[in-house]
């Protein structure tokens, strides 16, 4: 997907004034937050599971080469094939080659953020393969020709009215108002697609080294139909999703549903291991796992390693006040919110996405709710450090801060200048106690008054007091 992260500020402003979007975001936020809280309140061992999950993932990352090789061995043992992909183009090519080898005309897809990361749909369409998104949220945005705005609920930015309009327009059917009717129409439309697809492509929430299994955690059943009906099942996934054993993955599964949607378990949690067995009546004859790197092996060796623990639950963005105000599209790429602000600069470029790590107050709510204990504000700060070192910051802001630091490192000069400036400001603001306009601070005074200083600085007053004493 082509990034528009450089336009974050404009996109955010548009989002703030988009009434429909604001209504949709308002509805979603409370639901996700309250449901997660209820699920966690009902699970006394949640804290222990969190600690254990961090340990499991850290152990796995420390031995990632071993576990990936073992996974590959097991996939092959069960009649499957693993395709390693260093970059997005490698992954796209591997998938195109598989589709070509079976003369595929139509592909059904379960939801996969990695497939967005590599811009798979467009690549397939360019070689005349029809791509049908089957997850309802993904189906909706495919019809609307929009990117996903949330990693769990891709169409969270759409209101019911918008979806009614969309279905009426694209399906050519009478306009439906109620949710059950809309869902039912999507079910009817997609049924035939599942059955007639040549290839089914899913993602994977986790990969298990012990058994060579890939897992999808879903509610709709579309992922399972995608994985089980066509002759070929391709899993597009990434190298950090691996977990050692079935027991290890069970701990993570207990955290994922609760953190994402407040569910103890989803309607369907499915484990796929290799191709169909000789005794099976249905199931795919070919099973392929495409393992994408795209910068993750580099993250393993630098200050962003902890980000590799992410299990893509979305809790961070659900609780982020910035995401909650502007929605996912403002971020301009595949992954939004706090986790997206860490990943996007690493997977696209820091230059392209420099606003993202800055669009944060470091309130810390994301880190608080992250089931994998990822220190997201610290990682965002690491990007700011890189930006500073690479000279990517806006010059005016940078020099204002440099000036501040210069003065602050010289206490006498600092106290002299500050007390003078404050005297002037407090004199100017004495009567009303505030300014409705302040040059160089119009970002503030456009919507807020600026409280005036009380009088002299504390340190001047204190010094005087002590002098009197």
């Amino acid at each position, binding site marked *: 997907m082509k990034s528009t992260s450089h336009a974050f500020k404009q996109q955010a402003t548009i989002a703030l004034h988009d009434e429909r979007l604001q209504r949709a975001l308002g509805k979603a936020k409370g639901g996700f937050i309250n449901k997660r809280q209820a699920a966690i309140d009902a699970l006394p061992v949640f804290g222990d599971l969190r600690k254990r999950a961090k340990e499991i993932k850290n152990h796995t990352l420390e031995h990632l080469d071993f576990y990936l090789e073992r996974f590959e061995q097991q996939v092959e043992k069960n009649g499957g094939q693993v395709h390693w992909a260093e970059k997005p183009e490698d992954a796209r090519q591997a998938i195109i080659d598989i589709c070509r080898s079976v003369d595929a005309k139509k592909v059904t897809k379960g939801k996969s953020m990695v497939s967005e990361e590599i811009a798979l749909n467009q690549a397939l369409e360019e070689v005349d393969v029809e791509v049908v998104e089957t997850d309802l949220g993904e189906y909706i945005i495919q019809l609307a020709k929009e990117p996903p705005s949330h990693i769990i609920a891709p169409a969270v930015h759409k209101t019911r009215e918008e979806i009614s309009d969309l279905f009426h327009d694209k399906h050519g059917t009478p306009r439906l108002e109620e949710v059950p009717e809309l869902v039912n129409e999507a079910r009817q439309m997609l049924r035939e697609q599942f059955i007639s697809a040549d290839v089914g492509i899913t993602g994977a929430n986790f990969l298990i080294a012990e058994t060579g299994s890939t897992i999808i955690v879903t509610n709709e059943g579309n992922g399972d139909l995608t994985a089980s009906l066509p002759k070929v099942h391709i899993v597009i996934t990434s190298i950090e999703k691996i977990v050692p054993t079935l027991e290890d993955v069970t701990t993570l599964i207990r955290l994922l549903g609760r953190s994402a949607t407040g569910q103890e378990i989803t309607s369907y949690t499915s484990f796929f291991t290799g191709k169909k067995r000789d005794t099976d009546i249905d199931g795919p004859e070919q099973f392929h796992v495409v393992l994408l790197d795209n910068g993750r092996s580099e993250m393993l060796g630098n200050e962003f390693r902890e980000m590799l623990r992410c299990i893509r639950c979305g809790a961070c963005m659900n609780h982020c006040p910035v995401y909650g105000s502007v929605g996912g599209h403002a971020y301009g790429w595949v992954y939004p919110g706090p986790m997206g602000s860490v990943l996007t600069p690493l997977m696209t470029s820091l230059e392209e996405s420099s606003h993202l790590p*800055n669009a944060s107050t470091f309130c810390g709510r994301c880190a608080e709710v992250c089931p994998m204990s990822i220190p997201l504000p610290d990682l965002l700060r690491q990007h700011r450090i890189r930006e500073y070192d690479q000279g990517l910051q806006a010059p005016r802001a940078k020099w204002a801060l440099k000036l501040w630091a210069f003065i602050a490192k010289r*206490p006498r000069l600092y106290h002299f200048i500050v007390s003078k400036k404050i005297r002037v400001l407090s004199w100017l603001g004495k009567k009303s*106690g505030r300014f409705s306009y302040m040059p160089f601070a119009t*970002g503030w005074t456009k919507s807020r008054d*600026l409280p005036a200083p009380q009088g002299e600085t504390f340190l001047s007053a204190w010094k005087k007091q002590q002098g009197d004493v």
Partner: protein
Amino acid sequence: MINKSKNPPYVGLFITCLVDSFRPNIGFATVKLLEQAGCKLGVPEQQTCCGQPAFNSGDLEDSRALARQTIDAFAEFDYVVAPSGSCASMMKKHYVELFEEDTKWKQKAEQFSAKCFELVSFLTDVLGVEDLAADFNHSVTYHDSCSGLRELGVQEQPRQLLSKIQGLTLKEMKEPYVCCGFGGTFCVKFPDISTRMVSDKVENIQQSQAEILLAGDLGCLMNMAGRLKRLDSPVKVYHVAEVLAGMAENTPAIGEGEKE
């Protein structure tokens, strides 16, 4: 909890650049609270800024310089107390991170960190203050500033002390723990988003029907007061220390002039 029968704790007041410049009354309230609780106080002149703006802008070099300056300025004290969760957490949690590669300064930072505290939690958790001889006949709502809350665990302590103030009614707002949108340079870099966040916060404040807004961080307070005033709200804004020290009534609230 310290043993007060021994020598009085020698506390260095870290005034914070905002309090120093914009509202010394908070500083004097802090002094009163600490002396009332039996501390011997000092205010070193060599303090300016804790370095957080530089740190959050990725300028590690200046952060380290300011950290060293601050650590040295407070060398003689048993404790370093700041009327601000964000400055206190910068000093307590992040100074150590700045000196990972520097053994000498890492150690100094660790020792310094052990003696840094945010004001209200210092009063309750270290000095064991349980009661305050102050009254304030108003309804009050309390905003939990992010750093104090999430980095230092300051949440119960201010409510505990406020409950001891005569005549004070606490009216909790909806989601007091959600960020007000200040975030240091964030509010001027992303003013539209910041305005949305502070407007949401103001709505919660107004819904609480409290007359007074309190918090422990002047940055947050100025941000919320600024928006409240722009919207012509009658809600008055003070730092929690001012109320706890009985020094709120005779001073104009934040953002108000002498006549209001």
